[in-house]
């Protein structure tokens, strides 16, 4: 025999809620609560960008100004991070170094993304081009990106621009592969087939139906490329194949501090910490974007 309890039947009331009502918060606070990774990662990144942009306001020292009398000083109130072995203020160098890292990171992310998207779309839509392009990207990907970047910078003059170009070429194949995969799967979606049946021409299908729906994975991958580019740039500078030595970049600073790191460890650790925080922020942002934009996560319970 079945038994229907009547505990919630009397009075015709709904059973009580199991969750406490959320305290009404402003829309921003609510958004931060639901997207902590984006909030923290994006926040740190914006902070770094501000530091880089406002460098002349933050420090009055010129990062290239050598004062041999003050070389090798430990951190003090006059020089917050001390001075390096050529008498340059480390704090200024680190702050200005942020410019290089962020610039390289963003530039590579943008260039590699644009190139990768173009390659991926052509590959995804035109079968004959696909085979050729995929074999080229296979070749490029078989070389470790750092070695590829070193080789490319070795055959050109050392400059930040060349570093950006070299790392972009090294990172582009992965974006191309990703976009190609997304395009191939989107082509099978019913709404793309319906657009084709409705007589929409190919350029419009790509612009209206394919591209907007690839934005999510592209954005996430672009943040990862940015993080990888920053580290690659630091490595290149560290081994002397990157930005010229007069331009302060975190890799350069670490490289110069390498010789005396047992005496002056802060020369290596401080730029390394800054690099780590920036890369962490970018990765957090990427993870948060991926979680927020993933259509599976958006499925209704």
């Amino acid at each position, binding site marked *: 025999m079945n038994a229907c309890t*009547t505990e*919630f*039947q009397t009075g*015709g009331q709904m059973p009580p809620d*199991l969750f406490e009502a959320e305290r009404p918060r402003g829309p921003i606070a609510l958004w931060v609560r639901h997207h902590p990774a984006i909030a923290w990662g994006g926040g740190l990144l914006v902070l770094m960008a501000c530091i880089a942009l406002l460098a002349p306001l933050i420090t009055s020292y010129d990062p290239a100004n050598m004062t041999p009398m003050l070389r090798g000083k430990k951190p003090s109130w006059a020089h917050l991070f001390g001075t390096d072995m050529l008498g340059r203020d480390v704090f200024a160098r680190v702050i200005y170094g942020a410019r290089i890292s962020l610039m390289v990171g963003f530039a590579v992310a943008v260039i590699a993304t644009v190139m990768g998207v173009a390659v991926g779309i052509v590959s995804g839509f035109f079968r004959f081009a696909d085979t050729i392009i995929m074999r080229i990207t296979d070749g490029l990907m078989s070389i470790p990106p750092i070695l590829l970047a070193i080789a490319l910078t070795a055959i050109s003059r050392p400059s930040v621009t060349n570093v950006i170009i070299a790392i972009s070429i090294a990172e582009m194949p992965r974006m191309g592969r990703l976009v190609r995969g997304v395009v191939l799967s989107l082509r099978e979606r019913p709404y793309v087939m319906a657009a084709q049946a409705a007589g929409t021409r190919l350029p419009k299908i790509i612009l209206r139906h394919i591209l907007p729906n690839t934005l999510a994975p592209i954005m996430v991958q672009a943040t990862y490329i940015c993080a990888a580019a920053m580290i690659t740039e630091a490595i290149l500078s560290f081994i002397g194949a990157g930005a010229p030595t007069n331009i302060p970049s975190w890799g350069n600073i670490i490289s110069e501090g390498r010789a005396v790191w047992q005496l002056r460890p802060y020369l290596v650790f401080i730029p390394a910490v800054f690099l780590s925080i920036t890369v962490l922020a970018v990765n957090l942002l990427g993870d948060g974007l991926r979680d927020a934009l993933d259509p599976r996560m958006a499925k209704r319970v």
Partner: protein
Amino acid sequence: MTLLQVEDLQVHFRTPTGVVRSVNGLSFAVDRGETVAIVGESGCGKSVTSMSVLRLIPTPPGRMAGKILFEGRNLLALPEDDMKAIRGNEISMIFQEPMTSLNPVLTVGQQICETLRLHQGMDANQANARALVMLQLVGITAPERRLQSYPHQLSGGMCQRVMIAIALACDPKLLIADEPTTALDVTVQAQILDLMRDLQKRLGTAIVLVTHDLGVVAQTAQRVIVMYAGRKVEEASVDALFAHPMHPYTQGLMDAIPKLGSSLGSESRTQLAEIDGAVPDLRKPLVGCAFASRCSRSTVLCTQTMPMTQEKASGHWVACHHVESEKTP
């Protein structure tokens, strides 16, 4: 003899867009050896109910309240280890998509043996022998060969038979079947339903069958529970429900089903009866009867007060303010 008793089950989920109240005070019971069908459309809470019996609801976004008594023990209050000993052993479950419910990298034999060795403590030989018996029981031809097959080598119907074999391997007292035939072709569905009926007679397992298909219900179940918006709106024996549906939602559902042969009386095509409107948003708290906005009989009372579940005929429970006891479809 009551095997499973669900009392005032509530399952709510906290989602970024609000709290979804999937199940709102559901009570029912299942006797030994009985087949109870839970019927409703998508979003009514039937799948959530079936998963909460086995505590498969992820509790960070979800919260459960109420009692689920299995042979007197409250499953919602059991420690996780005790719950693991029950899953697959005393209560089993089969799911909707047979092709994706099986592990693609293990053979059929390995998957059946896994549950046997875990719960019954059998060694490899004993487990294999029993697995062979199970495959024969579910009607798979050439079972010795099939023990070595991988799921991708089997058709949908065969995968579902294997699922049933895994579920029944430890001779559970209760089998929960969540839309077991929805993803299958209709001829295969007929075979699987025949199999389930046959196995139930032989093994005496109680079955809770969750489905949206009233035809499947009519052919398989002994008692039927109709759910709407997380609540039970009608419960009756299968004969009573189809002969005299009392709740307007049940009546609407029965009218809306396309029935084979119904068009033969007329020259032109016949229309299907419709239910106006759509299922309510479970994120908004419901006041009054959830079906009121779609119901032809609704009055002011219906929009203010939730109807109580009352026994209108012997063993026939309805939650409606305006039941017309004598309406026949």
